[in-house]
């Protein structure tokens, strides 16, 4: 197993009751695997805020970053995480 940090913001952090949690995933796990572990931590009632109930995939418009970079440029949800990696999930935001 390896340890990664999963972080969230805004209402996802409210549902998680924290902006940051440490998670254990198997070596070779992907960003998607991390999101599933994160959903477990959020609790049953809150899972739909993170994952679409029908598909189990992340809700549209969530921004997902691995070590600060958007996963779209890193191979998407299949991108493999390493020990100590940082996965950040941010709900759609704007302004400022």
């Amino acid at each position, binding site marked *: 197993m390896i340890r990664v940090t999963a972080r969230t913001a805004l209402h996802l952090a409210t549902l998680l009751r924290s902006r940051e949690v440490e998670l254990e995933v198997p070596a070779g796990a992907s960003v998607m695997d991390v999101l599933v572990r994160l959903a477990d931590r959020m609790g049953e009632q809150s899972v739909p805020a993170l994952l679409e109930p029908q598909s189990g995939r992340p809700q549209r418009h969530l921004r997902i970053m691995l070590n600060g970079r958007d996963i779209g440029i890193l191979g998407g949800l299949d991108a493999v995480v390493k020990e100590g990696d940082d996965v950040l999930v941010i709900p759609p*935001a704007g302004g400022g």
Partner: protein
Amino acid sequence: MLQGGYTGKILRVDLSQREARTEEVSVELAKNYIGGAGFGIKTLYDEVPAGTDALGPDNKLIFACGPLSGSDTPCASRMAVTSKSPLTGAVGMALTGGFFPAELKFAGYDALIVEGTAEAPTYVTIDGDTVQFRDAQGLWGTNTSDCQQMIKDALKDQGYRIACIGPAGENLSRLACIINERRAAGRKGLGAVMGSKNLKAIAVRGHGEVAVADPEAYKAARSSFREHMRESPVLYSQFAKLGTPMVVDVVGAMGMLAAKNWRATGEFLPVDELGMEAGKAVTVGRNPCQGCPVACSQLKLARSAPYAGIMAEGPEFESIYSLGTQCGVDNMDAVIAADRLCDELGLDTMSAGVTVGFAMELYERGALSAVDSGDLDLSFGNDRAMIALLEKMAYREGIGDLLADGVKEAADRIGGDASRYAMHVKGLELPAYDVRGAKAHGLNYATSYTGADHNRGYAFQEIFGIPIPKEVDRFAVEGKGELCKWNQDIRTATCDCPTMCAFLLDMAVPAIAAENAAALLTSLTGVAFTAEEVFQVGERVNNLARAFSVREGFSRKDDTLPDRVMNEPLAAGGSKGHHIPQEDLDLMLDEYYTARGWDVATGTPTRQKLEELGLASVADDLGL
């Protein structure tokens, strides 16, 4: 012919001669510059020659609406205020919302050009065709709330909309802003220009309306725009409830919320104290701009001593940074109080707060002593000292006089290595986004015609992950030159000129911004715009503004970033390890000038580019 949108008239007010006259808006001006910032910068370039004293009678102050302002297109009561900036020496252009912009249109004017200097404190009233110069001796010294109310009472008409300055503008602080209602044309010291003209306020009252050239087509364009607003995953569902303070949480999570004069970004991160939840807890109401269904502007009430009972419209995200994290302050009530104080004094919350943070670092380093500070303990986090210092800056009392003109001027006067800690570009203090974690946004700070201005080329791709025109790596430098140009031109073309609230660009229509603007403008005004033509207006205005800077002596050497951004990698947080060293900045600048068709060695627009934009006479001016 202009059939709608525009009133077709520009009001020119000469304070020296106490005369007012009107001029017509030509179709050519409309087509090439649209309005707003376009009208302002075109007027400034044509009428304010190189070397003009920004605080002298020959500088001009241009209040220009776009054709959408005052129409029933949502979120369009906006106005660009343009002048030669006393803070930067380049174009000073700041946008404001509220009700004044629409009222100026209802009074019959697309723009108001103020020139000359009044002999004694004056305010100008505009009621349709009637323009009057009135004695402002009794208003001089008042804060911006009292000033506005006293004018309404004196005119026996509460319907007037007023733009005014506070004590900071009267005292020629180069951090002074212009306040209308509780909104601000905040940055670049435009309030000092108004003060230098002895102009305390402009009160406007209108009884007309904005005509529509093609009602059917306009209705369709407006409906389409509203549909995009409704479909946004953010605009109504999140932003309307949370406002700009939500960005504290987002940018904080990305390790880009600048703190303690940019020395503690990622380390000092008081999201619990200043973020979304803290903001919700103190929000007591809304105060939307004219015609805005989103109503992002929040009224916040402080509840703890010694600030209990103070209410502000805001603080917005940028002020939470400048009067909060930048100064090491994690007390929301103190930020509310400081925000309200700045509005009353007529101080730009952003530049003023950054300047206080700069003074705090120098104090900590021993470059400012207790004697210098007038016995204020300027340690980071001392909110009471911050508030006391803001007041001193507006009145130029003691150390306030040293700091009243911003960090660049203060650093020059203090000497030593103070300039290392002066967080500015071209004299304009840095906004909240620590651009060591967003390189296109950093390039925009370096190249914006107004100095370090997040609003001129906001990199929403990096900050909010919106993949338009494409998804980017926020830490990468390659490709950022072209992206920065696109961000600057689309913003100018679709927000700053038409005029439209910039929040709609990234939250509602990022993929179709130019098409949306073209459809609205064409149907509203009767002047045919294609999306390509709209976008090119953005490019034209950015080139003309650059030409103004070149004429004033600016070049590539001025397109730079503070020492700390270039040489100190972030020590903590979500952007840890990143910075923008000189070689990265050079690479981005080379790309940027190339994308712009400018000379790479000097950053000067080329004759070829200027001719392509119909600016051959500008090439002649520059001796190209």
